């Protein structure tokens, strides 16, 4: 029997590579029957260097039976173009989307893009493996949980796919050889989910609970990186590095002992307010040299609107401790959050500046599918945004469009003024 040929496509910001596709392939291929029935190729394209026509040419030459595209807001406009032409080039191939830009609004994409056959809803590994199995054995897609698909003129939504309770069921894409070590762009994941529910963020994917990978697996991955000799720096994709003190200490110990000083951490994302002297000790042990944190805004009403907390005293103390430890600090501010206005953004900026972080990053609010603001921002705050990815906010009741433009231009000047010395 001829093997089913699947090509998994990611369209990344220049220089980056998809970890998600590595998980899909590693999980699918752990099944012996699937290994016999399917060949899976992962290909990373770049938003800057590759255009849809190039990508379609590549796919046309591969003649796959299935193409799966990992969809993020930064590459979605290219994905839309690919989908529009896909069936005229590969009429018999199945086209499947997944990822945070597609999954939360699966039905809408199926309606908008007639070339798309199915969209994976939610966590992808189990659903993708089941989809491959169904296609390989010509079973009905209705048997595949977690799928939105086209059945003739009808859209079908299957039952939700249960989350993989034990994340260790997903083989490490690194330790199984699915993904190679890559300098600067190798990402490890120690848990999924996020205990916070920031209204603009989809990093936690709305998973109802936190699930952890076995620490020994993380240790093995770090050891593998250190052994590879090809990676000097690596990153964690975890939404928060210092989620719990015990976990932070455990991870620091793993990095210190398994990394053996051969590879060091890129910037990690932290919650500033929970940083104590003990956290700093753990960061030092882990070789952390830069951290990224909020506060996004410091204005109480806005914080409430976007379900965040900010404690000025604890935030200030964290910045001081980090500075004393020689760890570089990067603070994020979002322009356009509902409840803020032009001067409230300035108030956030002056507050953050007063803590003298090494760098301040200003970004315009993106209203991402699956987030609270996507679902409720319109009705609650009069929030409007560009329906086209990357879904830049247009305005809201407290922050009308014209002031958004003003704030955007002002922040560009502030960004240069504050961060120029880093060049």
């Amino acid at each position: 029997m001829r093997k089913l040929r699947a090509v998994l496509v990611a369209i990344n910001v220049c220089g980056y590579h998809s970890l998600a596709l590595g998980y899909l392939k590693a999980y699918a291929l752990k099944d012996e029957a699937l290994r016999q029935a399917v060949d899976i190729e992962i290909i990373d394209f770049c938003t800057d260097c590759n255009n849809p026509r190039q990508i379609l040419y590549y796919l046309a030459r591969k003649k796959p039976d299935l193409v799966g595209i990992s969809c993020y807001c930064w590459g979605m406009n290219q994905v839309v173009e690919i989908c529009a032409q896909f069936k005229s080039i590969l009429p018999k191939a199945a086209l499947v989307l997944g990822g945070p830009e597609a999954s939360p609004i699966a039905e809408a994409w199926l309606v908008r893009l007639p070339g798309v056959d199915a969209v994976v809803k939610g966590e992808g590994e189990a659903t993708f493996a089941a989809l491959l199995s169904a296609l390989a054995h010509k079973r009905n897609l209705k048997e595949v949980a977690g799928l939105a698909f086209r059945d003739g003129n009808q859209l079908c939504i299957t039952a939700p796919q249960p989350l993989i309770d034990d994340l260790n069921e997903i083989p490490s894409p690194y330790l199984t050889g699915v993904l190679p070590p890559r300098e600067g762009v190798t990402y490890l994941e120690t848990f999924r989910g996020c205990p916070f529910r920031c209204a603009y963020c989809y990093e936690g994917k709305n998973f109802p609970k936190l699930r952890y990978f076995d620490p020994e697996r993380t240790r093995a991955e770090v050891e593998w990186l250190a052994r590879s000799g090809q990676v000097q720096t690596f990153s964690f994709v975890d939404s928060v590095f210092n989620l719990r003190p015990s976990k932070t200490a455990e991870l620091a110990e793993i990095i210190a002992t398994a990394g053996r000083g051969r590879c060091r951490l890129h910037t990690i994302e932290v919650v500033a307010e929970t940083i104590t002297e003990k956290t700093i000790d753990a960061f030092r042990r882990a070789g952390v040299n830069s951290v990224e944190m909020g506060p996004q805004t410091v204005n109480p009403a806005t914080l409430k609107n976007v379900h965040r907390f900010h404690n000025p005293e604890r935030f200030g103390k964290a910045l001081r401790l980090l500075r004393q430890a020689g760890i570089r600090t990067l603070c994020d501010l979002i322009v356009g959050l509902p409840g803020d206005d032009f001067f409230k953004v300035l108030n956030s900026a002056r507050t953050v500046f007063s803590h003298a972080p090494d760098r301040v990053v200003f970004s315009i609010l993106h209203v991402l599918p699956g987030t609270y603001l996507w679902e409720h921002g319109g009705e609650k705050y009069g929030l409007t945004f560009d329906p086209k990815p990357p879904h830049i906010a247009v305005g809201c009741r407290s922050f009308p469009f014209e002031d958004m433009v003003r704030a955007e231009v002002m922040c560009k000047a502030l960004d240069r003024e504050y961060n120029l010395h880093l060049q």
Partner: protein
Amino acid sequence: MLHFKRVFTGSGCQNACPFCQAAGREAEPSQAAVEAAIREACAENILFWGGEPLLRPDINELACLAVRRGAKRLKVRTNARKLVEADLLNSLIEAGVWFFEVKVCGPTPEIHDAVCGRRGAFEETMAGIAALRQVTEMRGIKLTPYLECVVPVVKENLSSLEQAVQSLLAFEPDRIHFELSDLDLPLTRTAAYLRGALETALFNKVWATTLGLPLCVMAGFEPHVREALPGAPTGRKLKPCKGCALRDVCAGVDAAVINRQGERQVEGQLAPQGTSRYLESLKLLRQPLKVAP
């Protein structure tokens, strides 16, 4: 937004602007005196101002000292005429001066030279800015110096402020700042011209601010009013200000302008109670920060 500690470098200058803040001060304080001022400032952000700081032969040494004393951002307020000297410009950048606040008095030689009192100044200032904008790296590291153009608002350039913005856009400034520098200019008339200039800058994605006009006169353009931010100079409140909704958050009007023109300038401009949607946010900005740096 960032506060720069000012270090006076002397009033000597090739230009003769009638509104020069350094007028009457020492032409060239000794190197030791300026060094003492730098040590006293002991700040992350330092501004060298005069006069024309770039006329000092020791300007690089002063910059190096400021960096050694911990300055992260060094700014020089200049007419840019000396920036055409490649050696000087390169050595300034090398020494750590990456912020340039360049005074541009108008969009044409006729206006600029008339305001600053020196024929030929415009061409040199433009050439200096152009030279500054040629800098794209320092020792192999990408670097585009920060350029803020300061336009003194006077009767000679009032009707050409928008044109001034248009002419500056070619240099891709990071910011354009308008300073009321003529005590005789009627505020409301000035504001009308400034609005056009601000709109032009904003449309072209360049941030622009004003200094010297109160919030009521700049209604609709409050975000551009420099005095709305903490640390900006404050003026005097007038009798009509009593009934203004923005009274507590407005810096008022420069006392010198009031002395010259009287209080009629803000009559009829008052923001009625409760009409400014920025009021609460402006109050927030007036509050001292809870956490000390």
